[in-house]
């Protein structure tokens, strides 16, 4: 208990609170703008935080993450376009509520239930993270190898469209991770005599390139002014928003279902690379199945909208649990945060719970503080927040490109990092145009070292044998799970065909 009180004191320091507040405000603006995701915001602002004390810097990133996910619902309500992928399910009922003249209620629900989801998932994280980390301490190289493989394969498995278009960027990321000194014997690989490549390709410039410059270039290339004009006309219709608070009775009647959904969202969020969009759609679908009024879902159901908001932020606790306990990302933002923690000199994973236990507690308490900030700021600005959508895209593009360049350089005062960031930005742009998922590439680069080092350690222990795949029960379970992840779409296809026949 004592360490929690010390943690609370650390989190309530004025500088930590200030940076958390700045993060919440940045997240609110960026999340509300369609096309700008929390991942982009966290990637761009990560280099900036290295100049702050770790607690303050991380508070800012946690603030951006939580706030951007919640504010993604604002554009879902007003213009039927999710601000972030996680708020996709919010468009199902949020926009219909707005059309009914209940935009204020929808904006209020978005704030309150996002915070409820965030807080419940944080409590779940506080309860389960420590036992999971204690269990994971027993993991050896083979378990870590299969865990990293699970992380990469899940990202590929859930990548939109074809598995092949997830696998290729994944392998490309793994190839990039091999550049530099090898993690076991220190042999130089693919450095071409360049000192800049000796330590490998830095993760943060790659993240900034893909999610910053790459995304901005993609938006410039695919801009559809006709759609923008339609959205603008939608906003200028100036539909009345009305009140923002639900009736007390209605609010309390929604709580049990939302509490249940928060648990489900936390669980889905904990699955490596499951992502907020998938989690919120699954939660919305499950809530519809158990609802007393499923026919109202998708037509402006207050209940349906509240569960999608709860699910949005509910996944964050789960994703953070996976990230902190196992060192593998629960989603794209947590992949960036792993890079941030590494830059702070911390290695996410079970050892972090012993070596940096106080910082783990700080992170958990920051989640609570940021959610409280979102509640206050979100309610105070509920109606005004819709105005964020008036920010011009051109302004955002210029800002993103300049901040990406400055951020990539500031990390190591290295011009080479900017070149890497720009090249990867172009690769990210091509990936998006050609419908490849850039996520697996990032994950491949991030987990490549962990995969290689543990594969080689495990093989060294068994003198080159691959017996650890079937002799170690946890490894075997994870390998079976990975195989099932890839085989599942084909199995369901065969079963469907059989049924049809």
């Amino acid at each position, binding site marked *: 208990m004592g360490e929690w009180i010390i943690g609370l004191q650390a989190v309530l320091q004025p500088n930590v609170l200030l940076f958390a507040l700045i993060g919440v405000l940045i997240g609110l603006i960026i999340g509300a703008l369609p096309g700008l995701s929390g991942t982009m915001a966290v990637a761009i602002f990560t280099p900036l935080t290295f*100049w702050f004390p770790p607690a303050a810097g991380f508070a800012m990133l946690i603030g951006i993450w939580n706030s951007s996910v919640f504010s993604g619902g604002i554009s879902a309500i007003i213009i039927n376009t999710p601000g972030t992928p996680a708020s996709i399910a919010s468009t199902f009922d949020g926009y219909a509520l707005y059309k009914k003249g209940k935009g204020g209620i929808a904006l209020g629900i978005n704030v309150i239930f996002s915070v409820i989801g965030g807080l419940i998932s944080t409590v779940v994280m506080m309860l389960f993270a420590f036992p999971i980390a204690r269990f994971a301490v027993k993991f050896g190289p083979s378990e870590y190898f299969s865990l990293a493989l699970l992380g990469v394969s899940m990202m590929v498995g859930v990548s939109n469209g074809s598995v092949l278009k997830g696998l290729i960027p994944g*392998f490309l990321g*793994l190839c990039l991770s091999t550049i530099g000194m090898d993690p076991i*014997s220190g042999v130089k*690989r693919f450095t071409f005599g360049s000192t800049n490549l000796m330590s490998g390709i830095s993760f943060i410039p790659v993240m900034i390139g893909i999610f910053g410059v790459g995304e901005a270039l993609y938006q410039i290339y695919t801009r559809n002014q006709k759609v923008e004009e339609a959205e603008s006309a939608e906003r200028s219709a100036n539909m009345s928003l009305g009140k923002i608070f639900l009736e007390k009775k209605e609010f309390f009647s929604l709580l049990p279902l939302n509490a249940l959904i928060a648990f489900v969202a936390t669980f889905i969020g904990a699955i490596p690379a499951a992502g907020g969009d998938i989690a919120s759609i699954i939660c919305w679908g499950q809530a519809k199945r158990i609802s007393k009024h499923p026919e109202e879902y998708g037509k402006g159901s207050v209940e349906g909208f509240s569960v999608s908001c709860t699910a949005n932020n509910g996944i964050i606790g789960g994703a953070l649990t996976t990230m902190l306990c196992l060192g593998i990302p629960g989603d794209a933002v947590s992949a960036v945060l792993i890079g941030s923690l590494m830059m702070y000199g911390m290695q996410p994973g079970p050892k972090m719970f012993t070596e940096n236990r106080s910082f783990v507690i700080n992170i958990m308490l920051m989640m609570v503080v940021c959610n409280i900030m979102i509640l206050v700021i979100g309610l105070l600005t509920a109606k005004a927040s819709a105005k964020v959508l008036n920010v011009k895209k051109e302004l955002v593009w*210029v800002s993103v490109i300049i901040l990406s360049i400055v951020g990539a350089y500031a990390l190591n005062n290295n011009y080479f990092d900017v070149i890497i960031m720009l090249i990867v930005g172009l690769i990210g742009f091509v990936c998006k145009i*050609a419908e490849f998922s850039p996520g697996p590439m990032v994950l491949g680069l991030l987990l490549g070292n962990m995969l290689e080092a543990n594969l*080689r350690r495990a093989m060294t222990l068994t003198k080159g044998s691959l017996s650890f795949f079937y002799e170690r029960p946890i490894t075997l379970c994870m390998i079976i799970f990975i195989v099932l992840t890839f085989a599942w779409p084909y199995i369901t296809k065969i079963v469907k065909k059989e049924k049809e026949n």
Partner: protein
Amino acid sequence: MKKDDMYIGIVTALIGIFFLIKSLPLGLVEKNGIPSAGLFPILVSGGLILCSLVLIYKGFISRDTISYWHLMNFQKNNLKMFWLSLAGILVFMLIWKYIHFTFAIYFLSVFLNWAYKNSWKFNFIFTLIFVTIIIISFEKIMLVQFNV
């Protein structure tokens, strides 16, 4: 899948072959069974080549000839903005390397605002405020040295 995937597959296959050729001299496994530095790159580059070959095949048999790069008529202006953005960034990098960062960053902001058709008034006010804040916060407060 589209025909374009065939060309993308060829590029990724070439990248894979490059990594594979460069990894082979590092060896797969040592005599005592201990894996060498080349094992992992060989495995992943092999995986990349294999997937690329499947992509080339899928692209080859695809009947969808519409390019990923295809733009509607009303989006043609996007192409100009895209190339201008790239050109602006390239010139910025050169000015930064050979002249000075401060000059380069002001140039980039003015150029991009011009390329995106923001008004000159907005352009200058935005550049003055935004870039000055960036320079002050990074150079003066965080003490980042932008000289390269």
